[in-house]
């Protein structure tokens, strides 16, 4: 009786034990060494497999980093955070990547820009661009039919009032929209940038004025207004040199057609910390708009109406007595 129970239990248990230990041995003997860094890097990546790094997917990119082919900061989607983590895994310091985002440099909404004709074709910018370069009178403007919207894997693009708009918080700089846009009206801009020329027209001012109320007419007022020589002109179109720009927004104030967009709500004002100020007058000398009233050995004062928030004084103050608010 007891034997008929014991025999199956022992024999099956024995079989299981043999196979189990066999597998345990086999897993040692046939162990394939995978570089543990690959797995760690793979888990640090966003995992969207978007291909923005130039590799077929996140796995391939992780392999590339370990093999030394790909740069640690090669993932534009993950940005600085991911680059830093990969740097830690690889044991090397990585230069921080400045976060950049895509931006549609056109403000030719249905009420700002005129139409050449009524387009009733396929709702796709590439198709529309084949017909006389699109229905928009300005041949450089955004057609707003949403080809970029279709290719954006992160839902960062919306179509409002006939033009596309990129949400900078959602944008991961994968670059799909730049490739898809038949008008090349999407460009890179730093995420921190608060002033952008929202016009892509390379036509003469007179022609621009007829076609769009907010186009850059090439008057060069912004060039003269910029205290930092950050405004450049190329093909009759204003271009901000983002390396020089301090987001002071003077150009946007001066632009007669409002072609320069600026987020004035983000505009800062310099403030003097009275306890720290020793009255050296350096800030007053450096201020491009003479907004600082500085007598020697006295606490300086900033005129908030004149201050453009460029931050030069904050940078130059030897005592860190100025903060931007």
């Amino acid at each position: 009786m007891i034997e008929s129970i014991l025999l199956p239990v022992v024999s099956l248990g024995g079989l299981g034990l043999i196979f189990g230990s066999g597998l345990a041995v086999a897993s040692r003997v046939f162990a394939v060494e995978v570089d543990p860094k690959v797995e760690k890097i793979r888990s640090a990546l966003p995992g969207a497999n978007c291909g923005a790094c130039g590799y077929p997917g996140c796995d391939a990119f992780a392999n590339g980093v370990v093999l030394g082919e790909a740069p640690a900061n090669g993932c534009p989607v993950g940005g600085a955070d991911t680059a830093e983590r990969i740097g830690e895994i690889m044991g090397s310091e990585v230069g921080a990547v400045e976060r950049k985002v895509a931006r549609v440099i056109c403000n030719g909404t249905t009420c700002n820009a005129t139409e050449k004709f009524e387009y009733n074709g396929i709702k796709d910018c590439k198709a529309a661009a084949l017909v006389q370069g699109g229905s928009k009178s300005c041949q450089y403007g955004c057609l707003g039919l949403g080809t970029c919207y279709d290719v954006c894997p992160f839902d960062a693009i919306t179509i409002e009032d006939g033009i596309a708009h990129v949400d900078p918080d959602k944008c991961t700089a994968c670059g799909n929209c730049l490739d898809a846009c038949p008008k090349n009206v999407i460009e890179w801009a730093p995420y921190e940038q608060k002033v952008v020329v929202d016009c892509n027209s390379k036509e003469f001012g007179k022609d621009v004025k007829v076609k769009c109320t907010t186009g850059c007419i090439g008057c060069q007022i912004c060039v003269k207004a910029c205290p930092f020589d950050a405004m450049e002109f190329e093909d009759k179109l204003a271009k901000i040199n983002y390396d020089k720009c301090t987001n002071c927004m003077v150009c946007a104030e001066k632009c007669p057609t409002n072609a320069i967009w600026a987020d004035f709500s983000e505009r800062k004002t310099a403030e003097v910390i009275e306890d720290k100020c020793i009255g050296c007058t350096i800030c007053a000398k450096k201020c491009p708009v003479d907004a600082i009233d500085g007598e020697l050995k006295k606490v300086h004062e900033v005129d908030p109406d004149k201050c453009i928030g460029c931050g030069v004084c904050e940078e130059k103050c030897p005592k860190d007595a100025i903060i931007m608010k």
Partner: protein
Amino acid sequence: MELLTIAISAMLVNNFILSKFLGICPFLGVSKKVETATGMTMAVAFVMTLASIMTYFIQVAVLEPLGLEFLQTIAFILIIASLVQFVEMFIKKASPTLYEALGVYLPLITTNCAVLGLTLLNIQEKFNLLETIVHGVFAAIGFGLAIILFAGIRERLALADVPESLEGFPIALITAGLMSIAFLGFAGLV
């Protein structure tokens, strides 16, 4: 002659999928593309052949002497599962190319009923070792024949104008039924 009969029987007349209705899960699951169906077939053929041999020895050497034939099912599951695990490890080490080709299909068949069914049938039919191997190989070929043909049909179905309510799985099941009826035509062969 006996071996030929076993081969034809396993491949066509008693086709594992279409006549015995074993291995329906991969038949419907991995038959969307001919490519994946082929990969699955390769993996199944590999495991079926090895499992037939292994279970034969266990049956003859362990179960029969101890009078434990009633434990066949559970013992065979144990054997197949650990065999698949072992084979996976071995291939990963020995031939990474083959490992990538078989991909996810190898672990998928760990508990495939077609493999278990095959090993149990081998015992039921009282096959010797050679017959067991032939039966295993040709059962796998039959499995491949059915799943690759089915995948080919499904690839075309994806482009066909199917009534909306039948799109996807319903039409696939109808197709599978029709294929099964077609294979009934082989019934008089053996």
